[in-house]
């Protein structure tokens, strides 16, 4: 191995892949068979970058050569940067050797598009196939499908990869047309629809024949870039909801736009990365997937933007004061999940624990409830009740005054504008 050359390639192609935010390595169920190497299901973050994002997979591009010229992308054709490409064997060796040292859970492989979609996709599939069949590797493999790739290649990819994803890039078709004129939204949706159909069909087969091969066991995900185009949160979350409902996506990732290029269609180079907004979108996404919220309860035409100063669950509660207070010792799990400051685990613990005895403030606190927020919305086995006919606005003020949100500083500087 030419160490210097591989080091240089790794620097270039890891740097170019770092804006892909998908990092999941869980949700699969690949076992280590016949004393091979590795297994996939656990979802372990092995390290964290200095910006605080998790490192769980070797996330690289196969190449940053690209025939496309998308305005938001560092690898775009017209950008004057160093280009590189890994060989199939180099990617295999890096993956195996990093995995054996317990640096990573597996491989996340994306690519610029050289020549055409199928030519590129075929190489990605070859790497996955080699890892599985020649190296008996059972670690996690996430392949980024190239938009426009043929069904046959997508089918083969599903046999070797744990997860597949096609990036939507922009939340709406109009946004995509503006920044990525070479790309076509339908080319992204077609492979998703194909994979969805295939995953459902393979699952049925697996029920009948235990030996049927696994097919993309960790499902599909996608990514949209936030803040590069003018879509509001309502548009973004409705897009996400649409793909969750119709394509059974496991995850939609939201990637706050990091200005890397000067282009008059894009926010200026000195624009701050919309980190708070990105965080609020993830919180809203969680509410849709795990907390039983309908997307219209979180954003709608009266409320097209998420609050930046408070989380979306608290925002919903304050707009719906008529639903509160609820009695923690009697309410349904469904309603307990809607209380600000109560998470999934706490809600389940509450429902289990109250079968033994009614709970009071102290016990709720020990269970893990964030009382500084929850206390305004619940009653429990205690005479005190914190609401005292407070209005939503008042409650919000109290909570903001008490909390030391990591974002509070940013938010204050934004509020000063008014």
């Amino acid at each position, binding site marked *: *191995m030419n*160490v210097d050359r*591989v*080091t240089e390639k*790794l*620097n270039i192609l*890891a*740097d170019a*892949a*770092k*804006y892909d935010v998908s990092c999941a390595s869980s949700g699969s169920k690949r*076992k*280590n068979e016949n*004393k*091979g*190497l*590795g*297994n996939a299901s*656990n979802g*372990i*973050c*092995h*390290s*964290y*970058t*200095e*910006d*605080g*994002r*998790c*490192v769980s997979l*070797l*996330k690289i591009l196969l190449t940053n050569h690209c025939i496309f010229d998308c305005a938001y992308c560092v690898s775009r054709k017209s950008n004057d940067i160093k280009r590189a490409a890994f060989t199939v064997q180099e990617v295999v060796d*890096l993956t195996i*050797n*990093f995995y*054996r*040292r*317990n*640096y990573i859970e597996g491989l996340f492989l994306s690519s610029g598009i050289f020549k055409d979609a199928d030519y590129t996709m075929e190489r990605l599939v070859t790497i996955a196939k080699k890892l599985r069949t020649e190296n*008996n590797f059972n670690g996690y493999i996430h392949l980024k499908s190239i938009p426009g790739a043929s069904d046959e290649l997508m089918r083969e990819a599903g046999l070797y990869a744990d997860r597949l994803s096609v990036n939507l890039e922009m939340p709406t078709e109009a946004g995509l047309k503006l920044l990525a004129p070479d790309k076509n939204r339908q080319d992204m949706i077609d492979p998703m629809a194909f994979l969805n159909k295939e995953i459902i069909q393979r699952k049925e087969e697996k029920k009948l024949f235990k030996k049927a091969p696994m097919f993309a066991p960790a499902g599909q995900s996608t990514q949209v870039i936030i803040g590069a185009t003018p879509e509001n949160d309502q548009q973004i979350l409705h897009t996400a909801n649409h793909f969750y409902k119709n394509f059974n996506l496991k995850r939609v990732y939201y990637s706050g736009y*990091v200005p890397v290029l000067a282009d008059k269609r894009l926010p200026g180079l000195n624009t701050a*990365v919309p*980190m708070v907004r990105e965080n609020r979108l993830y919180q809203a996404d969680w509410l849709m997937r795990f907390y039983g919220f309908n997307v219209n309860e979180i954003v709608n035409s009266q409320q097209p933007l998420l609050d930046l100063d408070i989380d979306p669950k608290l925002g919903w509660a304050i707009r719906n004061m008529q639903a509160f207070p609820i009695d923690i010792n009697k309410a349904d799990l469904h309603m307990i999940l809607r209380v600000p400051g109560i998470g999934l685990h706490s809600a389940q*613990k*509450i429902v*289990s*624990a*109250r*079968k*033994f*005895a009614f*709970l009071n403030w102290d*016990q709720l606190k*020990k*269970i893990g409830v964030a009382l500084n927020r929850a206390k305004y919305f619940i009653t429990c086995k205690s005479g005190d009740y914190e609401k005292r006919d407070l209005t939503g606005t008042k409650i919000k003020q109290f909570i903001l005054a008490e909390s030391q949100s*990591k974002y509070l500083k940013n938010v204050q500087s934004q509020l000063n504008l008014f």
Partner: protein
Amino acid sequence: MTRLIYDGTFEGLLTAIFEIYDRRLTVVNLQKDGTGSSALFEDELQIITDDARANRVLKGLKTRLSANGVQRVYIAHFAGMEHEENNIAGYIRYAFDTQQNIEDDYGNKYVQRISQIVQMMRREKHRMEAFVRFQKLQDDTYYAAVEPDFNVLPLLIRHFKNRYADQKWMIYDVKRNYGIYYDLHDTEFVAMEFSASAPAGNAIAVFSEHEETYQHLWKNYFRSVNIASRKNTKLHLRHIPKRYWKHLTEKI
């Protein structure tokens, strides 16, 4: 108040529980040998670990708790945290004194505390699964040194055995001076003698041919994936506390 002194083993703890019921003691203070100071006006009782008695208590516990519940008690004791014996004993007594299964009674202080300790152990186990960094040695063994806060090595065996079935490996707890070694078939506990010039964390002298190359590549990779404009040191430190850094290839 009766002070019960036991030897620190799980069997010893169970024997103490037997004594509590046998002697109909109500108010007790359970302590590991040598950890407590004697107080005035206390009766003191030295517990002699007795496997037969311990087994009777364990058997009884199994009728009151699920397999998972019994395991939680075991893990909580195994954590070896100072002065937690009374909470563990409290949990066991609460299980015996209640007709229904008490595992989910999170309003109860003992259930609450055991749940907390088990969670701390799980977190540490999970961190070790993430932060172990193997170094390949000349004899093809992959070696890692760790210093976990709690004694979690035995809880790691299954994970690493399932994952690295085709390579010899050793994970060594520098703090507690013992390790687990997998020889391609079984795992065993080992203790090693290290000289002052080559302490347990340092295996550079016996690295295999490409070991330094891959460490170098990994460090480079770690640097390349950082997005400087999103720097967030607080978040970074919350995820990888500094005390783990000295065994993390990318942070050395």
